[in-house]
């Protein structure tokens, strides 16, 4: 039983780490702010949530699990809003998205 | 000190590199905000230099609990905890001075401020 839980939690933690690294690569490789925001804003909260879920499995049925669940909840609440505010600020400063058609020309 | 030093000494030495970067920014850059940021880097490197020797291998955070026998040293934690909050208070004071300087001189570059004051 504990082997299954351990394996599952490690799989979740490793998957979360993979998504975080993928998000970091996206920030480095994507061409402009909007696409980079996409990489950071979508992958990072997801990766961190997976890591926290893995930690919840490690903690078992204790108060720590409840705290981690609350963390996931707030992460899901604040991260998209931060992304939204960033995007709005960029639009406000009239930053044009980089469109594919322009590159083809 | 015979032969190569223990690799675990290099960890303290690496903190000195951070300190050098902070000191360089404070001395070399003319922008007052940049100087304050450099001062922050210098300050945080001191935090590490204080706290790193307090770590004990296999130790845990200094909160007394059942079944734990080895704790890290709580004394540097206390000193640095207050130092961080005092650091932000002094940073705020420095930034307030920068804002006032900008209002009076119209610039936050050191050489331009000196130019404006003219030869003493």
């Amino acid at each position, binding site marked *: 039983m504990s082997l299954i839980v351990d394996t599952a939690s490690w799989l979740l933690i490793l998957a979360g780490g993979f998504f975080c690294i993928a998000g970091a690569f996206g920030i480095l490789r994507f061409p402009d702010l909007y696409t980079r925001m996409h990489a950071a804003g979508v992958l990072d909260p997801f990766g961190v949530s997976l890591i926290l879920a893995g930690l919840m499995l490690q903690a078992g049925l204790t108060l720590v699990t409840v705290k981690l669940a609350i963390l996931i909840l*707030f992460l899901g*609440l*604040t991260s998209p*809003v931060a992304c*939204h*505010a960033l995007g*709005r600020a960029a639009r406000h400063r009239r930053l044009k998205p980089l469109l594919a058609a322009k590159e083809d020309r | 000190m015979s032969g190569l030093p223990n690799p675990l000494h290099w960890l303290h030495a690496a903190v000195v590199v951070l300190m050098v970067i902070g000191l360089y920014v404070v001395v070399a850059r003319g922008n007052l905000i940049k100087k304050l940021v450099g001062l922050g880097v210098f300050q945080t490197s001191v935090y590490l230099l204080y706290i790193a020797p307090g770590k004990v291998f296999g130790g845990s*955070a200094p*909160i007394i609990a059942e079944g734990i026998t080895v704790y890290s040293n709580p004394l540097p934690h206390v000193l640095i*905890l*207050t130092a*961080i*909050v005092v650091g*932000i*208070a002094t940073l*705020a004071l420095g*930034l*307030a001075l920068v*804002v006032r300087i900008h209002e009076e001189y119209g610039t936050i570059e050191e050489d331009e401020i000196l130019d404006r004051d003219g030869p003493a």
Partner: protein
Amino acid sequence: MMHREAIPRVVVKLLIPFLLLYALYVQFHGELGPGGGFQAGVIVATAVILYGLIFGLAEAKRIVPPRLIEVLVPLGVVIYAGVGFAGLLAGGNYLDYFVLDPDPVHGQERGIFWVEVGVLVTVSSTMTAIYYAFSGRGR
């Protein structure tokens, strides 16, 4: 018509009670786990700053008036120093908590509690005052 910044406003309104609750947890659980007056003070100030950033400085000043902040800044130091004088009055040394209660351990707990309250009040109000001073400056 929806407000232009509806999404941040709604979420911040939802978050601020939890932020304050978390600050209280950090303050009063600081004797058992990580935390204490310094951290809790900063978190309280963060809640005020967040409110001010999203709803505007005037609205934040309506809820937390600058007058109140200017009273609280010295009040925290007075609470801290007052604990010291309480020790003197009870017949001990300055900042001696053993004499605050017939049971010395209980006296220590009481002294630490009020000292942490003093730190909380000073740190939170000073950080809020600094934020007000900076953002009230205008260009």
